[in-house]
């Protein structure tokens, strides 16, 4: 009994050793990823995951010599579990980690990753503090400044007298609201910020305050998906005399329009791509096609973010693997050499790992289409202004 077990184990070992030898020219590299697949941020995590999978498929097809595969772990939006995930991924051979969503998760997870000497890249954490820690292996493609710049550019171009910001007390929306308040006030625009607890469901009292007291030209929503629906619904009921509703993440997406056609028309949010997709670049077209093929839906903003970060990481891995520095800690250096046009525009990484070029386009829902309206260079159409969903 024991002997046969040993025999079969030996056999398996021999075969296992034999296999890679047979396919010597194909090197398989594993990376890890931790995402919130459950909890309130689960939808973001799922979309991240989809973009990532498409990126790997395309990257592997483009460079068959080095195949990159990914292990994904649910971090349940808790820091300790994200740290555990990083450690588990590192111990099971991942050469790099793709990070999750939220600075509170990414902070500790990237710390752990740094201690283990693994490259960590994220597209879901915008806090400035993250890049002030002096980590050598930390990279991110987007940051608060970029969002702020994208939205501020649009708002300042429209020359409103007054803007009301409705901001969730969650981390990223708060940071964005603070930054925008400063930018807009510097241009002489009157800004009022209304912070709200994410547990809120009825936004009529806030909207009514804005309608009767602030009387702004534009309402800016620094919040998440379910908040947008509540806010726009309340605005639709109370009909404040505003000229535009603007939001941020996950707002200017085809999905929002399909689900809430009555609420979304003329609303503006951050976006990279118009819809239907008219991507100028070859890469963008391929991405859209592959995404449609794998998930039977239109690409979304978060999927694009994770597509870009994964593509950059994957290419750096392939470069390092071919140069033979992958096992010698050369990946971080390869990452730092990144300089490439992506669907987010040009991406480079500075000494802190941040992408200084990051800035956002703004897209407007228009009868089921999304038109890029700002900045001028990226625009695919003129903004409808004044225009509201009601």
């Amino acid at each position, binding site marked *: 009994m024991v002997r046969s077990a040993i025999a079969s184990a030996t056999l398996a070992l021999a075969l296992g050793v034999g296999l890679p030898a047979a396919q010597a020219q194909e090197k398989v590299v594993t990376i890890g990823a931790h995402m919130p*697949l459950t909890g309130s941020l689960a939808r973001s995590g799922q979309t991240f995951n989809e973009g990532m999978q498409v990126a790997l498929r395309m990257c592997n097809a483009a460079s068959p010599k080095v195949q990159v595969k990914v292990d994904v772990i*649910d971090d349940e939006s808790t820091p300790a579990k994200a740290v555990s995930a990083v450690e588990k991924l*590192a*111990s099971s051979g991942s050469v790099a980690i793709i990070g999750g969503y939220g600075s509170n998760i990414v902070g500790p997870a990237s710390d752990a990753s740094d201690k283990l000497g693994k490259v960590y890249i994220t597209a879901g954490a915008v806090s400035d503090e993250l890049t002030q820690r002096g980590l050598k292996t930390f990279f991110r493609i987007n940051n608060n400044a970029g969002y702020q710049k994208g939205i501020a550019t649009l708002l300042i171009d429209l020359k409103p007298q007054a803007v009301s910001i409705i901001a969730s*007390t969650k981390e990223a929306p*708060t*940071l964005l609201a603070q930054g925008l308040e400063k930018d807009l006030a510097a241009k002489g625009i009157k800004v009022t910020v209304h912070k709200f607890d994410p547990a809120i469901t009825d936004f009529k009292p806030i909207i009514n305050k804005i309608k009767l007291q602030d009387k702004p030209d534009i309402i800016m929503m620094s919040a998440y998906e379910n908040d947008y629906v509540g806010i726009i619904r309340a605005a639709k009921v109370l009909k404040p005399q505003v000229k535009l509703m603007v939001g941020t993440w996950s707002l200017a997406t085809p999905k929002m329009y399909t689900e809430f056609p009555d609420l979304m028309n003329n609303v503006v949010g951050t976006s990279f791509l118009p819809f239907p997709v008219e991507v100028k670049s070859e890469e963008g077209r391929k991405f859209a096609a592959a995404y449609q093929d794998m998930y039977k839906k239109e690409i979304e903003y978060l999927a694009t973010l994770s597509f870009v970060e994964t593509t950059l990481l994957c290419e750096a891995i392939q470069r390092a693997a071919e140069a033979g520095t992958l096992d010698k800690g050369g990946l971080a250096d390869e990452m730092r050499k990144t300089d490439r046009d992506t669907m987010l525009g040009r991406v480079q990484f500075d000494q802190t790992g941040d992408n200084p070029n990051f800035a956002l386009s703004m897209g407007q829902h228009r009868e089921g289409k999304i038109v890029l309206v700002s900045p001028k260079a990226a625009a695919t159409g003129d903004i409808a202004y004044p225009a509201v969903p009601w």
Partner: protein
Amino acid sequence: MSDTASSRLLSGRSLAMAGGLVVVGLLPLAAGASPYMLGLLISSLILAGLGLSWALLGNLGGMVSFGHAAFFGVGSYASALLAAKLGVPVLLAIPLAGGVATLSSLAMLPALRLSGPYFALAILAYAQIFRILATEASWLTGGAAGLQRFPGLPTVFGFNFAERHGSYVLVLGMVVLCALIYVVIRRSYVGIALRAIAESEDATRVVGVNSTLLKTWMLMLSAFIAGMFGALNAHIIGFLEPDYAFSGIWSVMPIIGAVFGGYRSVIGPVFGAVVIYMFDQVIAKSLIPVGHQILLGIVLAGMVLLAPNGLAGLVGRIFSRTGGKHHARA
């Protein structure tokens, strides 16, 4: 307390239990557990400590709390702020944070008059209020953006607590220490009175036990322990924000662990928290990657239905069936 009294309270058996706990606890180190495993174990031990603090209040005070996140969160913030803003050494900041959590528990004294679910949910309300206050007091706590630049665990005499093995030993030591404190109180005259209160409040009022005072002490002690584990966790994780520090997880997981292990015994909450957390993270998560808490719910419901005294009760029953009767009341 005289020497004889303390030796009676800390009997050979409880010291043996503590020793056993340390030995069992050190096994993963001896076995060369990966940082990943150690990380999971550290998280589970933090829940174990929190579970002890919860069971102390539940078992001795007869008060079920649904809001231990309140103390945990106050402890985390207090320690991080003391270390970052006042430069207090981390190992000193941790017990001080326990003290701050104790102070915060004084705000809950009016709740001691309440019974059953009313007390449970009043504490939950406190946890929510503290969370909102931490979000609003951004001048102190950094608000929603959180705190991330505060010192981690230090290196003492060349022993690095910040590194996984070191943190593990520190957290394990804290859990054993708290378990011993719990044992001492349980065995003391006070503990006997307290358990009598938990059984029937009216009866002991007649006997002349000042139950409100004793309950107050238990609430404060429970808050102290919970606050210390919150502080430990903060320094290990290195990031704090209100939603995390006061998360419902810190209220719920210790209850699940304590009920699973058996909240009436000392060892139950520790054992339960470790087993249930490892089960959830290692087994359940690999079976159902998304929504694995459903297994946690099923295990918990099954436990309450089939073995209401938890694992400890179950083990006790098996022991008593095989003859070792005195184990049944462990």
